[in-house]
């Protein structure tokens, strides 16, 4: 039934949805993902607002559908090198990076990682916890194949080791594996490269990186997730104690002309969600959310915020804290802020502080945009010259954008944009 082909770049929820829709229309899809697994940012989340659906529970079936679909070819751990041609008749060159593991042999048993002597900071867990130099990207990874990190593997860096090769019963380890270059022919391209987390270290006033009990929202998300570094146990980094009072600071790096002046669109809701989940983990716990405007604009969002107040001991204070300091005696972070409603300065102590960091377009956008020959805006989001009349367009015909790489947006908006971009691709292919 397959007739025409499309390239989707980015295997997060937007790229996955676009791929499934295209494939179901009978279009051959090449889904390119730079990481060793598809899943994207949503795979890192514990639950999703406003339904508190477990993120992995609703994402995993889609990841697997992608992997099993007869019309989808998954190219994980791969990157685009070049796009030539024109709408309806493009040629793309893609590099499939060496995993140093034979994909058809690896059974994902994990014995290699158990024995590997090299520990590395785990980026999937937002730097909390460690992984090995041979690793699976995350427990539910698709494909579930392991990968060797060439930056840290002892053998690949000329040191004596070879442990994983010896231990692997499937003989899947291959230190000699080389990058592979593929050329594919497609009629249209969808970019769904998603977002990165803004580095909050330069916002020294909030003490991240110096005060142990100040975390970013993504670190907190990993901490409350069952598959995260603490197995879902909420504990303070300084003393492993369960916290009783949390504070969330909103717009850290967002809506700030010194950093990113745009609104990241999802943080009001993820802070509310994290406060609700924290309360579920530790029933005595209370949270305070420091915000500028409570942007709960989606379906069911106002009710969600109300529920947080009524049932989960969440207090909202309209204030932009100026500073976070640390109480030396108990390592409690202290938030200094002006309560604008009561018009007074306050300093309040919490057990942990969570920073709702700005979300920025994926760093890889810069190089991808150049290879795709499309324009980006001043922030690095995909620019859309036709504005609202073609919300999926880019500056190159036949290349479309969807999801967070266009502008900050939540999961429902991303999947809508993904399906919409799929419809655009179907138009291009129908006329090609």
């Amino acid at each position, binding site marked *: 039934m397959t007739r025409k082909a499309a390239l989707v770049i980015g295997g997060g929820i937007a790229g996955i949805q676009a791929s499934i829709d295209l494939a179901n229309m009978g279009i051959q899809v090449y889904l390119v993902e730079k990481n060793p697994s598809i899943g994207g940012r949503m795979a890192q989340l514990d639950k999703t607002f406003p339904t508190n659906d477990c993120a992995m529970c*609703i994402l995993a079936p889609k990841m697997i559908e992608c992997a099993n679909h007869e019309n989808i070819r998954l190219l994980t751990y791969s990157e685009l090198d070049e796009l030539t041609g024109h709408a309806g008749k493009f040629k793309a060159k893609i590099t499939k990076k060496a995993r140093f593991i034979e994909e058809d042999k690896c059974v994902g048993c994990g014995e290699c990682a158990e024995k590997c002597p090299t520990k590395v900071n785990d980026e999937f867990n937002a730097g909390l916890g460690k992984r090995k130099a041979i690793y699976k990207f995350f427990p*539910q990874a698709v*494909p579930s194949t392991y990968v060797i990190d060439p930056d840290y593997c002892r053998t690949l860096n000329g040191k004596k080791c070879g442990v994983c090769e010896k231990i692997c019963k499937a003989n899947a380890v291959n230190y000699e594996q080389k990058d592979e270059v593929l050329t594919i022919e497609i009629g249209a391209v969808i970019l769904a490269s998603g977002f990165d987390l803004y580095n909050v270290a330069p916002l020294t006033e909030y003490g991240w990186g110096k005060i142990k009990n100040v975390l970013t929202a993504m670190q907190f998300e990993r901490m409350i997730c069952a598959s995260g570094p603490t197995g879902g146990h909420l504990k303070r980094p300084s003393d492993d104690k369960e916290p009783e009072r949390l504070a969330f600071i909103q717009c850290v790096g967002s809506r700030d002309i010194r950093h990113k002046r745009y*609104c990241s669109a999802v943080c009001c809701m993820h802070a509310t969600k994290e406060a609700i989940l924290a309360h579920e983990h530790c029933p005595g716990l209370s949270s305070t959310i420091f915000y500028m405007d409570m942007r709960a604009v*989606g*379906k069911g969002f106002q*009710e969600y915020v109300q529920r947080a107040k009524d049932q989960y001991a969440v207090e909202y204070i309209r204030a932009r804290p100026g500073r976070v300091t640390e109480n030396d005696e108990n390592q409690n972070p202290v938030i200094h802020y002006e309560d604008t409603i009561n018009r007074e300065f306050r300093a309040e102590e919490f057990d942990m502080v969570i920073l709702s960091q700005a979300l920025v377009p994926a760093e890889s956008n810069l190089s991808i945009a150049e290879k795709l020959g499309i324009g980006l805006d001043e922030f690095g989001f995909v620019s859309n010259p036709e504005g609202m009349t073609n919300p999926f367009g880019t500056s190159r015909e036949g290349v479309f954008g969807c999801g967070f790489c266009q502008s900050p947006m939540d999961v429902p908006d991303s999947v809508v944009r993904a399906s919409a971009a799929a419809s655009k691709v179907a*138009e291009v292919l129908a006329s090609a």
Partner: protein
Amino acid sequence: MSVRIGVFICHCGTNIGGIVNVPEVVEYAQTLPNVAFTEGNLYTCSEDGLSSIRNNIKEYDLNRVVVASCTPRTHEILFRQNCELAGLNKYLFEFVNLREHCSWVHMEAHDDATLKAKDLVRMGVAKVSLLTPQEDLSTDVIRACLVIGGGISGLSASLTLASQGYHVALIEKKDRLGGLLKDINRVFPSNEPSSHLLDPLISSSSKHQNIDVYLEAELIDVKGFIGNFTVTLRQNSKTKELKVGTIIVSTGAQELQPVGSFGYNRFDNVMTQLEFEQRFKSDFDGLNRVVMINCVGARIEERKYCGRFCCITGMKNAILLKEANPEAEISILQRDIMACGKIFEDYYRTALEMGIRFIRYNVDRPPDVTGSDNVADKVRVYHELMGKDIEIDVDAVLLTTPLVPGEDNQKLSRIMRIPVGNEGYFLEAHQKLRPVEFPSDGIFLAGCARYPTDISECISQGYAAAAKAAIPMAQGQVITDAFTCEVDPSRCSACGRCVEICPFGAIDWADWKDLKGKTRSVAMVNPTECKGCGLCSSSCLSSAIKLKGFTDEEILAMVNTV
């Protein structure tokens, strides 16, 4: 062949495992009759879990599978397909819900939840033993789509489907296309006239050879199922029947008229944002002092939701007023400014830099609009930052109100058997991942019919709904679930209860020749129209109807183990 059951029990991270003692349930399941293999998984739906099911089907020669995890709504298809990949008929699978039916509702009672989980697993095992292999049914799909509502969402959906080569019937109850956007003066953030955006879409839809536009048309009836709907319209007091394969609902919404609030209806110069746009267009003479009140009728007890883009609508009109007269004093009384994302935050900043004043008010101390005769001249409001009441002189007061659900939603909901949520908007299949689909196959949703949605989101949703509608039309065939009802004609007493009760019109009369060669009329189920709801089988007085996959024997086997 003896029955050999595999039972896979999911921790679902901590969702189930944090409450139910999963290892204990796994051990217990091993003791149940016909169970040949059991296992606990952190996530049974992960590739690890799925491949374990496949491998163990082969290794242990399993011919029945039970997964005890979450809900069939999201995961049944996945597990069934997985069984199929391992060579097992996919209908020899039984789903036990340990999350929604157990761990989530018994969070405080771990021991009892574990006991209940064992009961549920035992019931699942009892049922799966009796299941029999079934075959899917397939039907052809008509390559045409009915789009209900000719606003920006419906126009977008129609045009993309038509360009992909599908036929579209676009019906609109008014005498013109364009919907609510047609009434809007200018659009944010470009501030261009809405006609620049809308007119090209209206003209291409009207001219497109694949689109039939029906104006002043009303939907009377929808019968059938995905791939093969029969739709009845009334136009100019004549009825017309159309055959389509899919349906998109894009019926829009309407602006709230805040009767009785803030001097609305009492003062001539108090009006909604939309009324302002229609009354003044671009001649703003005499409007030197304007106050806008946001969240009128929104984010309050009787209407809890946020109108999503009304803040931006108010800002747009404030910017237009200020551009026409930079000396104009414009104040926006607001509760939170909802300028989400990239473009709107800049738009907000532009408004601030132009000197538009944003004043925060508290919902418990709302502004007060006063005046004499039928003219409002003052707005008094408690200024939260200053901590005191202030008074503002006004030439006009604009009330920013949210959209409210379309008046036909309830009627359409009945005609098409599609759900409406608490607020009166249509309810999608899944809020997070299926925002433009209905639970019923073949019917999709776009734009303000679902929830207040700005223009570019309406366009996106129109395209997204079109993609979903295009899928079955591109495939040309739909597979229907084999779990449908079947009449045993020898037991049918032809009472007709089932024919009346079936919500899908799937049961009809047919002639049947009995063993003695005598012909009589009996009820017959058309399996392609049957949704397997079971209403007929449970109401049949002669026990003549069975629902495959839920037969009396199977259900009783479950009940008898408890």
